[in-house]
């Protein structure tokens, strides 16, 4: 039986770590434009977020693509034990959900929970 629905891809931290910023942004936009929902195990850096926003804007067209919905948690200022020793605060980006703006809608969000609605048009 053919099952209809929306494809959701979960991308592991390992896979993301092996990719350059541009590869990540390209992958996200290609997948989202083809109607998929993506869940990234590890979030994007601030400069990757900038690239993603810029490229999203470039690709918006009136009739096909109105942009993305992207949700992540506020960064955690994790200071690991080693980090503390070295006087560094690490900015940790976290789980991120991305989808087409016309299909993914955030219902509720707080520091630790994202609740989203996925529509099938």
């Amino acid at each position, binding site marked *: 039986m053919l099952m209809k629905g929306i494809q959701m891809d979960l991308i592991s931290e390992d896979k993301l770590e092996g990719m350059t910023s541009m590869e990540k942004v390209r992958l996200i936009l290609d997948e989202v434009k083809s109607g998929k929902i993506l869940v990234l195990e590890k979030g994007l*850096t*601030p*400069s990757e*977020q*900038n690239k*993603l*926003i*810029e490229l*999203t*804007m*470039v690709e*918006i067209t*009136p009739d096909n693509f*109105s*942009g*993305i*919905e*992207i*949700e*992540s*948690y*506020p*960064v955690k*200022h994790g200071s690991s034990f080693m980090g503390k020793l070295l006087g560094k605060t690490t*900015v940790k*980006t976290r789980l991120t959900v991305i989808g087409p*703006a*016309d299909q993914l809608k*955030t219902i509720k*969000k*707080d*520091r630790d929970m994202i609740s989203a609605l996925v529509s099938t048009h």
Partner: protein
Amino acid sequence: MGIIKKMKSKFKKKRARIGIYGPPNAGKTTLANRIIRDWTGDAMGSVSHVPHETRRARRREGVTINANGSSVTLDVIDTPGLATKIDFHDFMALGMNEEDSKRRAKEATEGVIEAVKWLDDLDGVILVMDATEDPYTQVNVTVIGNMEARRLPLLIVANKIDLPDSSPARIHGAFPQHPLVSVSALEGQNIDLLYKEIADHFG
């Protein structure tokens, strides 16, 4: 004025460049207009209830703010509202015709890119949020993440506190690590407090 003093004031450290950021409709231009009007007598740009009214960044140079017995001179940049999606249908729903809506959407996408690019050239950011709205958005997370990564000062403005369902506390709960001032850019509540915070953080 003595010659030394004259030289000093002439070669004083460069003015801080402060960007006013936030999602569309948060009240960035309303706030920029108030700041510029209070300290220079001029205005910055046009305001509208239709989102993406500002579609080009605007810089006003040399705005001197006196507060707390200290004085700071800033270049103030009012930026286009940041967004991850722009749908021309939203403008049509607000009564604009299709052609104008499509043009506005196109210009808005360019404005967002411009605002993102400006992040590279700033010394600090005033992040304006509509305090009646959910603060946990990608736009807010991105602006804050950028400033933290660059170790630049950030001041959060919880705007529209004249509205009954505004909740600056919710914003503080979302980003507790950053200073916050609650204001009404429209009606002027707490604007003196904002100037004090500006002098403290960007001086």
